[in-house]
Protein backbone atom coordinates (compact mmCIF):
# COMPACT_ATOMS: atom_id res chain seq x y z
CA UNK A 1 0.00 0.00 0.00
CA UNK A 2 1.55 3.29 -1.15
CA UNK A 3 0.92 6.46 0.88
CA UNK A 4 -0.87 8.90 -1.46
CA UNK A 5 0.51 11.98 0.31
CA UNK A 6 4.06 10.67 -0.19
CA UNK A 7 3.33 10.11 -3.89
CA UNK A 8 2.21 13.76 -4.22
CA UNK A 9 5.40 15.01 -2.55
CA UNK A 10 7.64 12.79 -4.68
CA UNK A 11 5.77 13.95 -7.80
CA UNK A 12 6.20 17.59 -6.67
CA UNK A 13 9.98 17.12 -6.26
CA UNK A 14 10.42 15.55 -9.70
CA UNK A 15 7.95 18.01 -11.24
CA UNK A 16 9.85 21.03 -9.88
CA UNK A 17 13.14 19.64 -11.20
CA UNK A 18 11.72 19.05 -14.68
CA UNK A 19 9.99 22.47 -14.72
CA UNK A 20 13.31 24.17 -13.88
CA UNK A 21 15.12 22.18 -16.60
CA UNK A 22 12.43 23.02 -19.17
CA UNK A 23 12.36 26.70 -18.10
CA UNK A 24 16.14 26.79 -18.56
CA UNK A 25 15.79 25.37 -22.09
CA UNK A 26 13.05 27.97 -22.75
CA UNK A 27 15.34 30.81 -21.61
CA UNK A 28 18.14 29.51 -23.84
CA UNK A 29 15.70 29.20 -26.74
CA UNK A 30 14.75 32.87 -26.29
CA UNK A 31 18.42 33.86 -26.04
CA UNK A 32 19.36 32.00 -29.22
CA UNK A 33 16.36 33.60 -30.96
CA UNK A 34 17.70 37.03 -29.97
CA UNK A 35 21.17 36.11 -31.26
CA UNK A 36 19.62 34.97 -34.55
CA UNK A 37 17.83 38.32 -34.92
CA UNK A 38 21.09 40.17 -34.23
CA UNK A 39 22.83 38.14 -36.93
CA UNK A 40 20.03 39.11 -39.36
CA UNK A 41 20.49 42.78 -38.46
CA UNK A 42 24.23 42.60 -39.10
CA UNK A 43 23.66 40.79 -42.40
CA UNK A 44 21.22 43.55 -43.46
CA UNK A 45 23.72 46.20 -42.39
CA UNK A 46 26.45 44.54 -44.46
CA UNK A 47 24.12 44.11 -47.46
CA UNK A 48 23.09 47.78 -47.30
CA UNK A 49 26.74 48.72 -47.18
CA UNK A 50 27.65 46.59 -50.20
CA UNK A 51 24.62 48.00 -52.15
CA UNK A 52 25.57 51.57 -51.30
Amino acid at each position, binding site marked *: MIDETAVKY*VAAVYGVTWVVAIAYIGILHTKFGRLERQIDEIVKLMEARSDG
Partner: protein
Amino acid sequence: MAVVLAATLMPLAVAMIFFYVPTDVDQGYSQRIFYFHVPIALTTYTLFAWGALNAARFLWTRDMRLDLKSYVPMHLGVMFGCLTLVTGSLWAHISWGVWWYWGSTELTTFLIIFLFYCAYFMLRFSVEPGEKRATFSAVYALLGVGLIPISVIAVHTAQDIIHPITFSRNGANMDGSMFATFLVSLAALLSLAVAMYCIEMRGKRIDDRLKQLRRLAEASS
Protein backbone atom coordinates in the same frame (compact mmCIF):
# COMPACT_ATOMS: atom_id res chain seq x y z
CA MET B 1 28.58 14.50 -25.65
CA ALA B 2 27.31 15.82 -22.27
CA VAL B 3 23.91 16.60 -23.80
CA VAL B 4 23.58 13.01 -25.13
CA LEU B 5 24.75 11.61 -21.78
CA ALA B 6 22.25 13.77 -19.86
CA ALA B 7 19.42 12.88 -22.27
CA THR B 8 20.20 9.17 -21.73
CA LEU B 9 20.89 9.17 -18.01
CA MET B 10 18.01 11.41 -16.86
CA PRO B 11 15.20 9.10 -18.10
CA LEU B 12 17.24 6.07 -16.93
CA ALA B 13 17.53 7.56 -13.44
CA VAL B 14 13.79 8.33 -13.28
CA ALA B 15 12.97 4.79 -14.50
CA MET B 16 15.25 3.25 -11.85
CA ILE B 17 13.81 5.45 -9.09
CA PHE B 18 10.20 4.57 -9.86
CA PHE B 19 10.41 1.01 -11.22
CA TYR B 20 13.62 -0.60 -9.94
CA VAL B 21 14.60 0.59 -6.49
CA PRO B 22 12.67 -0.94 -3.54
CA THR B 23 10.63 1.22 -1.18
CA ASP B 24 12.58 2.11 1.95
CA VAL B 25 11.32 0.23 5.02
CA ASP B 26 11.91 3.14 7.39
CA GLN B 27 10.82 6.22 5.40
CA GLY B 28 8.47 4.60 2.90
CA TYR B 29 7.73 5.97 -0.58
CA SER B 30 8.91 9.52 0.17
CA GLN B 31 12.52 8.25 0.49
CA ARG B 32 12.59 8.30 -3.34
CA ILE B 33 13.12 12.07 -3.05
CA PHE B 34 16.64 11.21 -1.80
CA TYR B 35 17.70 10.04 -5.30
CA PHE B 36 17.19 13.53 -6.72
CA HIS B 37 17.67 15.78 -3.70
CA VAL B 38 21.15 14.53 -2.69
CA PRO B 39 22.61 14.43 -6.26
CA ILE B 40 21.24 17.96 -6.85
CA ALA B 41 22.93 19.15 -3.64
CA LEU B 42 26.22 17.45 -4.61
CA THR B 43 25.99 18.98 -8.10
CA THR B 44 25.53 22.40 -6.47
CA TYR B 45 28.73 21.95 -4.46
CA THR B 46 30.57 20.71 -7.57
CA LEU B 47 29.47 23.74 -9.59
CA PHE B 48 30.53 26.19 -6.88
CA ALA B 49 33.89 24.39 -6.52
CA TRP B 50 34.33 24.38 -10.31
CA GLY B 51 33.56 28.11 -10.51
CA ALA B 52 36.00 28.81 -7.69
CA LEU B 53 38.72 26.72 -9.38
CA ASN B 54 38.33 28.78 -12.56
CA ALA B 55 38.34 31.95 -10.44
CA ALA B 56 41.68 30.87 -8.96
CA ARG B 57 43.00 30.12 -12.44
CA PHE B 58 41.86 33.60 -13.56
CA LEU B 59 43.70 35.28 -10.68
CA TRP B 60 46.81 33.27 -11.60
CA THR B 61 46.75 33.84 -15.38
CA ARG B 62 44.53 37.00 -15.79
CA ASP B 63 42.93 35.28 -18.79
CA MET B 64 39.48 36.90 -19.21
CA ARG B 65 38.00 33.71 -20.71
CA LEU B 66 38.38 32.12 -17.28
CA ASP B 67 36.19 34.86 -15.78
CA LEU B 68 33.30 33.61 -17.92
CA LYS B 69 34.20 30.00 -17.06
CA SER B 70 33.94 30.97 -13.40
CA TYR B 71 30.71 32.97 -13.74
CA VAL B 72 28.67 30.31 -15.61
CA PRO B 73 29.15 27.52 -12.98
CA MET B 74 28.24 30.06 -10.24
CA HIS B 75 25.06 30.92 -12.12
CA LEU B 76 24.16 27.25 -12.58
CA GLY B 77 25.17 26.51 -8.97
CA VAL B 78 22.65 29.04 -7.66
CA MET B 79 19.98 27.44 -9.86
CA PHE B 80 20.81 23.94 -8.56
CA GLY B 81 21.08 25.36 -5.02
CA CYS B 82 17.57 26.75 -5.35
CA LEU B 83 16.39 23.30 -6.46
CA THR B 84 18.19 21.70 -3.48
CA LEU B 85 16.33 23.98 -1.08
CA VAL B 86 12.95 23.39 -2.73
CA THR B 87 13.33 19.59 -2.95
CA GLY B 88 14.80 19.44 0.57
CA SER B 89 11.96 21.50 1.93
CA LEU B 90 9.38 19.19 0.35
CA TRP B 91 11.18 16.14 1.77
CA ALA B 92 11.40 17.81 5.20
CA HIS B 93 7.67 18.48 5.20
CA ILE B 94 6.68 14.91 4.39
CA SER B 95 9.29 13.36 6.73
CA TRP B 96 9.45 15.75 9.68
CA GLY B 97 6.24 17.78 9.31
CA VAL B 98 8.12 21.09 8.94
CA TRP B 99 9.28 23.00 5.82
CA TRP B 100 12.55 24.05 7.46
CA TYR B 101 14.43 23.12 10.64
CA TRP B 102 16.71 25.85 11.97
CA GLY B 103 18.28 23.52 14.55
CA SER B 104 20.06 21.56 11.84
CA THR B 105 23.66 22.75 11.29
CA GLU B 106 23.93 21.27 7.79
CA LEU B 107 20.72 22.91 6.52
CA THR B 108 21.71 26.30 7.89
CA THR B 109 25.25 25.96 6.46
CA PHE B 110 23.85 25.10 3.04
CA LEU B 111 21.52 28.13 3.21
CA ILE B 112 24.50 30.37 4.11
CA ILE B 113 26.49 29.04 1.11
CA PHE B 114 23.49 29.56 -1.17
CA LEU B 115 22.88 33.14 0.03
CA PHE B 116 26.62 33.87 -0.18
CA TYR B 117 26.64 32.92 -3.87
CA CYS B 118 23.39 34.82 -4.52
CA ALA B 119 25.27 37.90 -3.29
CA TYR B 120 28.05 37.08 -5.82
CA PHE B 121 25.75 38.35 -8.58
CA MET B 122 24.98 41.56 -6.68
CA LEU B 123 28.72 42.23 -6.42
CA ARG B 124 29.42 41.23 -10.03
CA PHE B 125 26.74 43.39 -11.59
CA SER B 126 27.52 46.42 -9.42
CA VAL B 127 30.96 46.75 -11.09
CA GLU B 128 31.56 47.81 -14.71
CA PRO B 129 32.55 44.91 -17.02
CA GLY B 130 36.30 44.45 -17.29
CA GLU B 131 39.29 43.16 -15.39
CA LYS B 132 38.29 44.91 -12.16
CA ARG B 133 34.93 43.15 -12.11
CA ALA B 134 36.53 39.82 -12.96
CA THR B 135 39.05 40.22 -10.11
CA PHE B 136 36.41 41.16 -7.52
CA SER B 137 34.20 38.25 -8.66
CA ALA B 138 37.10 35.77 -8.56
CA VAL B 139 38.17 36.78 -5.04
CA TYR B 140 34.56 36.54 -3.81
CA ALA B 141 34.07 33.13 -5.48
CA LEU B 142 37.22 31.83 -3.78
CA LEU B 143 36.12 33.10 -0.37
CA GLY B 144 32.83 31.22 -0.68
CA VAL B 145 34.30 27.87 -1.62
CA GLY B 146 35.83 27.61 1.85
CA LEU B 147 32.29 27.16 3.18
CA ILE B 148 31.77 23.90 1.24
CA PRO B 149 34.05 21.68 3.40
CA ILE B 150 32.52 23.32 6.49
CA SER B 151 29.09 22.24 5.23
CA VAL B 152 30.26 18.66 4.54
CA ILE B 153 31.93 18.46 7.98
CA ALA B 154 28.73 19.83 9.54
CA VAL B 155 26.73 16.96 8.06
CA HIS B 156 29.13 14.42 9.56
CA THR B 157 29.62 16.01 12.95
CA ALA B 158 26.02 17.07 13.59
CA GLN B 159 24.67 14.97 16.39
CA ASP B 160 21.02 15.53 15.62
CA ILE B 161 19.33 12.54 14.02
CA ILE B 162 16.96 14.64 11.93
CA HIS B 163 19.25 14.73 8.86
CA PRO B 164 20.43 11.12 8.40
CA ILE B 165 24.03 10.44 7.37
CA THR B 166 23.98 8.26 4.28
CA PHE B 167 27.71 8.04 3.67
CA SER B 168 30.11 7.23 6.49
CA ARG B 169 33.65 5.86 6.69
CA ASN B 170 32.14 2.36 6.49
CA GLY B 171 30.62 3.14 3.07
CA ALA B 172 27.06 3.78 1.94
CA ASN B 173 24.30 2.99 4.44
CA MET B 174 21.95 1.49 1.83
CA ASP B 175 21.57 -1.70 -0.16
CA GLY B 176 23.15 -2.37 -3.59
CA SER B 177 20.15 -1.45 -5.76
CA MET B 178 19.64 1.81 -3.84
CA PHE B 179 23.30 2.72 -4.17
CA ALA B 180 23.29 1.91 -7.91
CA THR B 181 20.20 4.12 -8.41
CA PHE B 182 21.85 6.89 -6.42
CA LEU B 183 25.01 6.69 -8.58
CA VAL B 184 22.99 6.78 -11.83
CA SER B 185 21.03 9.81 -10.53
CA LEU B 186 24.26 11.53 -9.53
CA ALA B 187 25.79 10.87 -12.97
CA ALA B 188 22.56 12.12 -14.61
CA LEU B 189 22.49 15.36 -12.63
CA LEU B 190 26.22 15.99 -13.12
CA SER B 191 25.96 15.39 -16.87
CA LEU B 192 22.90 17.68 -16.98
CA ALA B 193 24.95 20.39 -15.27
CA VAL B 194 27.85 19.89 -17.72
CA ALA B 195 25.41 20.00 -20.67
CA MET B 196 23.88 23.25 -19.34
CA TYR B 197 27.37 24.67 -18.83
CA CYS B 198 28.44 23.84 -22.40
CA ILE B 199 25.27 25.30 -23.94
CA GLU B 200 25.40 28.47 -21.84
CA MET B 201 29.11 28.98 -22.58
CA ARG B 202 28.46 28.57 -26.30
CA GLY B 203 25.64 31.14 -26.12
CA LYS B 204 27.83 33.62 -24.29
CA ARG B 205 30.73 33.15 -26.74
CA ILE B 206 28.38 33.73 -29.71
CA ASP B 207 27.00 36.81 -27.94
CA ASP B 208 30.52 38.22 -27.49
CA ARG B 209 31.47 37.53 -31.12
CA LEU B 210 28.27 39.16 -32.34
CA LYS B 211 29.01 42.29 -30.33
CA GLN B 212 32.49 42.42 -31.91
CA LEU B 213 31.01 41.87 -35.37
CA ARG B 214 28.39 44.60 -34.84
CA ARG B 215 31.08 47.06 -33.74
CA LEU B 216 33.16 46.21 -36.83
CA ALA B 217 30.14 46.49 -39.17
CA GLU B 218 29.11 49.86 -37.69
CA ALA B 219 32.66 51.20 -37.77
CA SER B 220 33.15 50.29 -41.43
CA SER B 221 29.77 51.66 -42.65
